[in-house]
C-alpha cells in the first residue's frame, strides 16, 4: 500500500475507517490494542483484507507477521469476504449430541459447500461455531444473526431456499 492510500485511510471520509481509527485512539495506539482493532475492522468491513492488516500494523507499531499471525490464530477473524448471507451451525457438544453433524452433512449435500466456504455466487457462507451457549436449544443454527433453536436439516434447508429463491433484498 502506498503512502497516498494510507493517508487517505487516516483522513478518510469513510465512516468505517473513522470508527476503526477511533478504536485505536481509545487505546492510545498501543500495540496491545491489536485484537480490539481487528475486531473493529471485521465488524465494519465484514473481513480483514491485507491492506487493512498492513494499515493496522503500522498504526499500532506491530510487526506485519505478528498481525497476520494473530488474525489467523483466532477463528473469529476471517480474511475472506463473507457471503451475502451467513449460516452458522453450532458444533458445541449439546448440538453435536443433538444432531448438528447430520445438518452439516445435508447442507453440504444440498448446497454444495462445507464449513468455512462460500457458494461460488457469493450468496451463502457456511460457518461452524464452537458453542453459541444456546445448548438448551440444541441443535442451534444462526441465520444472519438470528439464533434458531431445535433445528432439523429440513428446517435449515428451507431457510436456505428462501435465501436463494427469493431474496427480499433483490
Amino acid at each position, binding site marked *: 500500500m502506498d503512502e497516498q492510500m494510507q493517508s487517505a485511510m487516516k483522513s478518510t471520509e469513510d465512516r468505517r475507517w473513522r470508527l476503526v481509527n477511533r478504536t485505536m485512539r481509545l487505546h492510545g495506539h498501543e*500495540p496491545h490494542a491489536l485484537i480490539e482493532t481487528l475486531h473493529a475492522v471485521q465488524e465494519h468491513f465484514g473481513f480483514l483484507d491485507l491492506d487493512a492488516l498492513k494499515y493496522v500494523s503500522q498504526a499500532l507499531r506491530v510487526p506485519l507477521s505478528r498481525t497476520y499471525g494473530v488474525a489467523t490464530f483466532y477463528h473469529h477473524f476471517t480474511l475472506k469476504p463473507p457471503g451475502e448471507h451467513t449460516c452458522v451451525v453450532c458444533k*458445541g457438544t449439546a448440538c453435536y*449430541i443433538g444432531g448438528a453433524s447430520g445438518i452439516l452433512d445435508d447442507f453440504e449435500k444440498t448446497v454444495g459447500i462445507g464449513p468455512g466456504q462460500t457458494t461460488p455466487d457469493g450468496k451463502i457462507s457456511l460457518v461452524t461455531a*464452537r458453542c453459541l451457549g*444456546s445448548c438448551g436449544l440444541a441443535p442451534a443454527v444462526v441465520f444472519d444473526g438470528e*439464533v434458531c433453536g431445535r433445528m432439523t436439516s429440513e428446517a435449515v434447508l428451507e431457510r436456505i431456499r428462501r435465501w436463494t429463491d427469493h431474496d427480499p433484498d433483490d
Partner: protein
Amino acid sequence: MTLTIEDLQNIAKIERDRQEGTTYQINVCVAAGCLSCQSGLVKEAFDTEISRRGLENWCLVKGVGCLGLCAAGPLIQVQPQGTYYQGVTVNDVSEILDSLGGSPVARLECSQHQAFFQCQQKIVLENCGKIDPERIEDYIAEDGYLGLFTALRQMTPGEVIEQVTKSGLRGRGGAGFPTGLKWTAVSKAVNNTKFIVCNADEGDPGAFMDRSVLESDPHRVIEGMAIAGYAVGASHGFIYVRAEYPLAVKRVHTAIAQAERLGVLGNNIFNTRFEFNIEVRLGAGAFVCGEETALIASIEGRHGRPRPRPPFPAEFGLWGFPTLINNVETFANIAPIIRRGGEWFAGIGTEKSKGTKVFALAGRVNNTGLIEVPMGTRLRDIVFEIGGGIPGDKRFKAVQTGGPSGGCIPEEHLDMPVDYESLAAVGSIMGSGGMIIMDETSCMVDVAQFFMEFCMSESCGKCVPCRVGTTQIYHLLHKISGGQGKPSDIETLGELCDLLKNTSLCGLGQTAPNPVISTLKYFKDEYKAHIRDKNCPAGACRMQAPEEAL
C-alpha cells in the same frame, strides 16, 4: 461527588417502591436462550397491550435474565404468585393479562413446584430471572454493591481476603484452586501496579453458565472484581469475554457505564482512596485462551499461546505485573460472601468443596437449562430429578462433565456426590460446569472423537505433544469409528493419552486425553466392537466397507 451509603439505600428504596407500587409484575426472560425463541417480541407485546389497556400502574413488565429452564423457552414468571409460563408466544399475551387476579392459564403453566425449581439453591444465580440486567437500580435494590461498601468502609484488605479464605471458595473455572490462596499470593506480590482479570472466555462446548450470569446479572461480577481489586491492591480490571456472546458483551458494557456514572467504579469509591476501572476485552474464538497465560497473551494483543508456568500470573502476569485471574462464577460468589460472611458460605456444600455450583444441563435430558445446586448433590438427582430424566424412554448411558477436558461418567457412578474430589476420582473434572447427558443412541467412540477433534483444532500448536499428539489420537479414533481400527490401536491410544497428560505444556494438552481415557476405561467394549466386529453398538458411526480397509 461520591456515592455514600445513604445514596445507595435511597436508590434501593426508590426502586423497591417502584416495583412494589404495582399489584403484578411480569418477568419476561430476555437472556440469549429465550431471546432466540422470540421472547423479545413477547415482552414488546406485553408492553403494548398494557399501555393499550392503560394498566401501567397495575402491572409492571420487566425483562429479566435467565429463569433457568431453557428447554421451555420463552419463559415468563408472574409475581407475586411466582407462576411460570412456558413456551409463551405473542398470541398468549392477552390471555395471560386477562388471567391476572384469577386462576392461571393452565395450558401454559409450568409448575413451580417441580423438582427443577425446588431442588436448587441459588447464590450465584440469586438475581437471575429476578432483576432487570440493564438497570443498576434493580441490582442495588437486591443489596447490590453493599458488599463493596462493606469491604471498603468496614474491612481492611487483609480482612476481605480472610473472609474469602474462610469461605473455602475454590476457583469455578475448572481446576478448583482455592480462591483465598490465589488472592493472598497476588496481595503479597510487591508491585505498585497489579491487575484483576475476569475470565469470561467460556469456551467449553456445552457450557453456558458464564454467559447467563453476564447476561442476567452483570453488576454482580463487577462488584466481585472491585472487591478483589481492593483486597489485592489493584486498580485496573479486564473482563475477557467471548465475542460470540454479543448480548453479554453489550450488557457488560452497559453495566460498566452505569457503575461509572454512579461512582461504584472510578476514583474515590465510597469516599475512600480506592479507585478501580474495568475494561472489556473481546476474545476471538480460541478455547486455549481460557488458560491463564494464553489469556494474558491475548489481552496483550498477541496470539494466545501459553507459556510455561512458573512464574505464575500472581507474580508475573499482564505485561509482567502481578495479576489475579478468576472466572465469572468465582467473582459472582464474592459479594454474597462479603455481605454474609465466609462462615455462612462454608456451611454449604461438602468438606472440601464449599458453596454451590452452577451447571449447564444439555444433551439427552428433558430439562435442559441452567441450574445451581449445593456441592455434594448426587449426580443421579441432577440428571433424573432436576433434569427430569431422559426423553423418549431411552436408557441413560453416561454424563460428560468438564467439557473437552473432562470425562464420561457411566451409570455405576451416578450415586456419587458432585464435588471436585469425587469427579477427579472417577477420571473427570468439575470444569466450568457443563454437563452433557448421553443416552443409548450416543456412541462413546464417536463422542471421544468429537472431543478430540475439538482439542485438535483448538490446540495452539506450540508444544509437540499437544500439536501432533491430538492429531494422531484423532486420526486413530477416526480410523476406529470408521471400522478400520487394528487391535493394537487401543494400546497406542492409551500410550499417546499418557504422553499428552504428562508432557504437554499447558492444561489444554494435559487434559485433552481425558474423554478418551475415561471412555476407554468405562466403555472399552464399544471400542472393541468397532475394531473386532466392525460394528457400532449405538448405531452412530458409519462403517466403511471392509475392502477399503488397510
